[in-house]
């Protein structure tokens, strides 16, 4: 026998003693019969195409996954999803590097060292669940369930977690949107009940024709776009906006301007780039509106800016205009000029009067057009609200709102899905949140709704924070009590004792990084962490995981079932299917919800009902179906009418094909047209997507110029420029209920409003200045000399938190923010060309990257400024703020940024988790912009961290 092997007889005796090998060995393989094995082998190598959606970034593009042997082999765009129309970017295509990342979280783990130290051990799911459930039940007993915060980070798949924690009894369930751009969304929410306004650029759309057929329409109508602090060519949350902008330019001669202190990718193709001082978006919008109001002439075709028809569909314009105009008589203390005049804005923004006039005139006269404000403009400023309100007003009065080629609210016509305030979850979560609970307040037992214990909506600071507040968590983690000031429990106080974070990285992005670290590690006099429980649930290994007590690995986006519907023009939804089994020991959110619910029930909690959780949701599809019960749930409105065969204004429910074919029941009492329910199974048979017809001018009746009183979803079902008004004996408007609460509480003003001197929420147009801006707010003028630079932020699409785990993407440079300025470093990389014979496996090798060959986060600054300071591209500098905080990084010098402004991208530097791949290696010379923000500067109405309001000085390191 030709056998070769090393004989290890010497150790035979030794190993025989280890009986545990036989008795408790862990078996990872199983035997098959030869037939079974052959059958399996035969089945291999066949491709299946499965439709799903991306979740590596918030765009959630529709994707086609080519799956073979239970493994994703290729990722393409799903050509049936209008949102991305078959396109997939480099990031989406690199999904396999994330799904199959060797560094993703694989098993439940429990911390053994100190928070932040990174010492963990693997545990079983039951150990981890027991650990969490036990603590939650104890915290609930001692402090009440409201002492627990469920922060679902990303929007997607939050519903299982919200359901569980609302069901358990805490009203404090939040999501990533709370730290995203709440001031940006404020105007749309107040005025039309909406959220984000985008140009009408999503194509294709399906439009009803006079002959009854549906046309797939690829044409663009838009003629002019003004992007203010919005960079869709990089931060592609609204994926169709980048191809759509170029499409409208090429096909329809559309022009677009960009207002941005930095020469962004979007600016690089613009017809005009205007670079004002940071934080002056509001000023420019206000001056545009004043100019339009003062110079509109309905008889002069070259001055006919306003389409006065808007008043037919609006409420309160006169009050709004009066409040706006009342400022004109006042002089701004910063420059002595009349508010909102062109001169005033030019002075504050540091641009010319002519530029502002050109902006106002070009926008006013060109139709259809859209003014768009982004995350980096009103979105991240302390005073973003007036800007966002003015943006809406500009679009509405010029007749561009919901006009073909104009601007659309992408929130209020999307299909009904999940979340607070919509269909199923609304009813279900309300069921939990409306439960009556009792608390002792000042020695008296008081009864109220669970929801009235919400930290924000009834708390002392930001009652109108309808997206909740995350930026102030550190102070509560450190022991400050939540003070309920409004509603039934007025006077009640409670601490925050548990923080469950799911798919977020709040230590880095929640507000100031240093502040989160400080708060999560704060201990009481007995040496216990003040925040008793910190749980991290995710697929990725991010910095926040290092501070967790327990880590639960969640199935990646390709391994769980949910829905996507990002910012469409019309009702649209697509399936985010589980295309492969969850890898390693990760579990999908439905399973995690059920496991925790069951354990808490076993531990005696009776707010948890089996029928609400594991008995009802035996699989993901059932939960996913429940999430969209009755979808799209949107009215049959607009021009052309989506379904002329059904009554105008009736709510449409059911699959597009059932509505099209007439397989419906019409309920005249409820004013509903009900077809067949959309389900994951239906989606799988229909290219993974449901698309309902597009229409425009959805605020008016199809055949007459009067409001349909169905949409938009405001109290009056009209466009509302007043937010606290009387309608008969009823009080209405978006702010009215908050003002009612304030009045009931003896006119005790919320702390946020107090900061800006407002006693209550304003009834109509309002104005206040931002913080840390010496050029618009006199209170900060004194800092201008010592801190001569305004710090702004932005994102780099391919190097955001999660994707820094994808090594190939990180190498690509972007704008002045992500440049090949690395120090020499060594890392493992795949060898680009195989050596030796053709069939030799490709190998990864250690490779030294020479200095300045690999992209890292940088500090973008103007050439003149750099020359003055003796800096050049690559110089290591320290950036300091007036609060004594600093960050370090290398400068990238170019003319593409306004003098006096520096820009650092979110999450691009100082990444202190080794999970960040090459980004970790550069952590000591790359900047963390969040380390510089003022943790106390939370915008006064919605409580969002003012990410873009800071001034700094710069010196060589």
């Amino acid at each position, binding site marked *: 026998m030709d056998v*070769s092997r090393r004989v290890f007889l010497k150790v035979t005796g030794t190993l025989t003693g280890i*009986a*545990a090998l036989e008795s408790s060995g862990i078996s990872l393989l199983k035997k098959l019969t030869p037939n079974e094995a052959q059958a399996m082998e035969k089945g291999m190598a066949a491709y299946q195409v499965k439709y799903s959606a991306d979740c590596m970034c918030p765009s959630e593009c529709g994707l086609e996954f080519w799956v073979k042997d239970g493994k994703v082999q290729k990722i393409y765009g799903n050509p049936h999803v209008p949102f991305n129309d078959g396109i997939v970017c480099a990031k989406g295509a690199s999904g396999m590097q994330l799904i199959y990342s060797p560094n993703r979280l694989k098993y439940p783990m429990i911390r*053994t060292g100190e928070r932040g130290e990174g010492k*963990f051990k*693997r545990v079983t799911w039951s150990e981890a669940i027991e650990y969490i459930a036990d603590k939650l039940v104890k915290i609930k007993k001692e402090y009440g369930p409201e002492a627990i915060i469920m922060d679902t980070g990303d929007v997607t798949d939050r519903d299982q977690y919200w359901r569980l924690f609302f069901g358990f009894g805490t009203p404090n369930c939040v999501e990533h949107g709370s730290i995203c751009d709440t001031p940006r969304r404020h105007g749309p929410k107040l005025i039309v009940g909406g959220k984000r306004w985008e140009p009408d650029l999503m194509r294709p759309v399906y439009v009803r024709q006079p002959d009854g057929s549906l046309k797939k329409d690829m044409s663009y109508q838009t003629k002019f776009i003004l992007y203010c602090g919005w960079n869709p060519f990089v931060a592609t949350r609204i994926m169709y906006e980048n191809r759509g902008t170029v499409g409208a330019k090429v096909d329809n001669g559309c022009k677009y301007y960009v207002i941005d202190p930095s020469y962004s990718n979007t600016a690089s193709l613009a017809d005009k780039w205007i670079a004002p001082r940071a934080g002056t978006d509001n000023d420019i919008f206000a001056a545009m509106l004043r100019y339009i109001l003062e110079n509109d002439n309905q008889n002069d075709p070259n001055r006919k800016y306003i389409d006065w028809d808007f008043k037919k569909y609006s409420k309160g314009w006169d009050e709004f205009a009066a409040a706006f105009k009342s400022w004109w008589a006042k002089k701004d203390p910063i420059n002595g000029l009349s508010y909102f005049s062109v001169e005033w804005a030019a002075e504050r923004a540091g641009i010319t009067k002519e530029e502002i006039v050109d902006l106002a005139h070009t926008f006013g006269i060109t139709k259809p057009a859209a003014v768009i404000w982004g995350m980096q403009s009103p979105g991240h400023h302390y005073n973003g609200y007036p800007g966002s309100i003015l943006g809406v007003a500009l679009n509405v009065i010029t007749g561009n709102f919901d006009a073909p080629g104009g601007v659309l609210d992408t929130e209020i016509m999307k299909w009904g899905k999940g979340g607070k305030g919509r269909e199923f979850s609304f009813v279900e979560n309300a069921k939990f949140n409306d439960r009556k609970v009792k608390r002792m307040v000042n020695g008296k037992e008081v009864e109220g709704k669970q929801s009235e214990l919400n930290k924000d909506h009834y708390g002392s600071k930001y009652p109108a924070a309808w997206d909740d507040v995350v930026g102030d968590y550190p102070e509560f983690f450190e022991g400050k009590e939540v003070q309920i000031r409004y509603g039934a429990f007025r006077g009640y106080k409670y601490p925050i004792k548990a923080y469950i974070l799911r798919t977020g990285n709040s230590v880095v992005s929640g507000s100031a990084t240093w502040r989160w670290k400080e708060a999560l590690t704060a201990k009481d006099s007995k040496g216990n962490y003040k925040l008793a429980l910190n749980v991290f649930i995710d697929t990725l290994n991010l910095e926040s995981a290092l501070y967790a007590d327990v880590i639960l690995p969640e199935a990646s986006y390709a391994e769980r079932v949910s829905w996507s519907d990002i910012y469409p023009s019309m009702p649209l939804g697509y399936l985010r299917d589980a295309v492969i089994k969850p890898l390693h020991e990760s579990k999908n959110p439905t399973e995690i919800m059920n496991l925790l619910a069951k354990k808490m029930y076993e531990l005696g909690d009776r707010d948890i009902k089996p029928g609400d959780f594991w008995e009802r949701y035996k699989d993901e599809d059932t939960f996913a179906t429940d999430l969209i019960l009755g979808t799209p749930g949107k009215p049959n409105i607009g021009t052309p009418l989506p379904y002329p065969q059904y009554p105008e204004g009736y709510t449409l429910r059911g699959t597009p094909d059932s509505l099209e074919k007439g397989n419906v029941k019409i309920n005249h009492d409820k004013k509903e047209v009900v077809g067949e329910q959309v389900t994951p199974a239906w989606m799988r048979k229909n290219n993974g997507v449901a698309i309902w017809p597009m229409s425009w001018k959805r605020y008016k009746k199809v055949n007459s110029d009067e409001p349909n009183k169905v949409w938009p979803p405001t109290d009056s079902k009209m466009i509302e420029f007043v937010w606290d008004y009387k309608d008969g004996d009823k009080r209405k408007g978006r702010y009215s209920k908050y003002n009612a609460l304030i009045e009931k509480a003896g006119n005790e003003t919320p702390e946020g409003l107090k900061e800006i001197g407002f006693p209550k929420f304003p009834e109509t147009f309002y104005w206040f200045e931002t913080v840390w801006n010496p050029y618009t707010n006199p209170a900060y003028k004194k800092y201008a000399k010592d801190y001569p630079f305004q710090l702004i932020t932005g994102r780099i699409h391919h190097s955001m938190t999660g994707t820094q785990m994808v090594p190939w993407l990180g190498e690509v440079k972007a704008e002045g923010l992500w440049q090949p300025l690395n120090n020499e470093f060594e890392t493992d990389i*795949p060898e680009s060309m195989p050596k030796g014979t053709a069939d030799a496996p490709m190998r990864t090798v250690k490779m030294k990257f020479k200095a300045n060959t690999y992209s890292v986060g940088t500090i973008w600054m103007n050439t003149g400024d750099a020359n003055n300071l003796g800096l050049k591209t690559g110089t290591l500098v320290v950036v300091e703020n007036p609060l004594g905080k600093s960050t370090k990084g290398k400068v990238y010098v170019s003319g593409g940024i306004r003098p006096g402004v520096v820009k650092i991208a979110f999450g691009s530097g100082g990444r202190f988790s080794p999970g960040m791949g090459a980004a970790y290696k550069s952590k000591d010379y790359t900047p963390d912009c969040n380390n510089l923000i003022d943790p106390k500067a939370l915008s006064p109405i919605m409580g969002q961290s003012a990410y873009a309001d800071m001034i700094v000085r710069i010196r060589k390191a």
Partner: protein
Amino acid sequence: MLNAIKSEQQLYKFLQRVFAREVDAAFIADLAATQPPEDDDVVSEALARMIDVAGEEGKDRNALLEELAVEYARLFIGPRNPPAIPFASFYLSESRALMTDETIAVRKIYLANNMVVENLYSTPDDHIAIELEFLAHLSGAMIEALVAGNSERTNELENARELFIKEHLQQWIPSFVEAIDNANPHPFYQGAAHILEEVIMTQEPLSV
């Protein structure tokens, strides 16, 4: 020869257990009660080191188990990037990812021997512990064939084993062991890594 294969199977099982997950109390108790081998070859020395760890005097057993569990997580799991990824494809594939074509090739080898990963499609087939379990399975089958006097089957299994070791395991084990060595490992896992390397990389003629 039978004894040789039995001893080899024991080693495979031993290593499989050490790399499959953190060790438990029973395993450590057995190991601590074991007489260390006195020879000075690599395997004996490394094993002696592991026994020393298990039986260290005055050391609290629970503390030791915790220490080893934390070290296991640090080396092989995370939540920081683990320095020694225990999957073959990480070392063999262009993408440095898991579940690559190299992983599927390993699945086919298992199937050809009527074996499949228990947690198919979730656990990548080329985890070091699974590959060691597969070797232990082949050794077990060889023992049966030898006892039954089926030399054709014995040869077949030996060829399968040799092919798997030479063409697959030997391609990545040195990198894996080097990764462990470079991560300043606990002596327990350093010992296991050195035994692994010796078992996989050394092929000597078997005297029947």
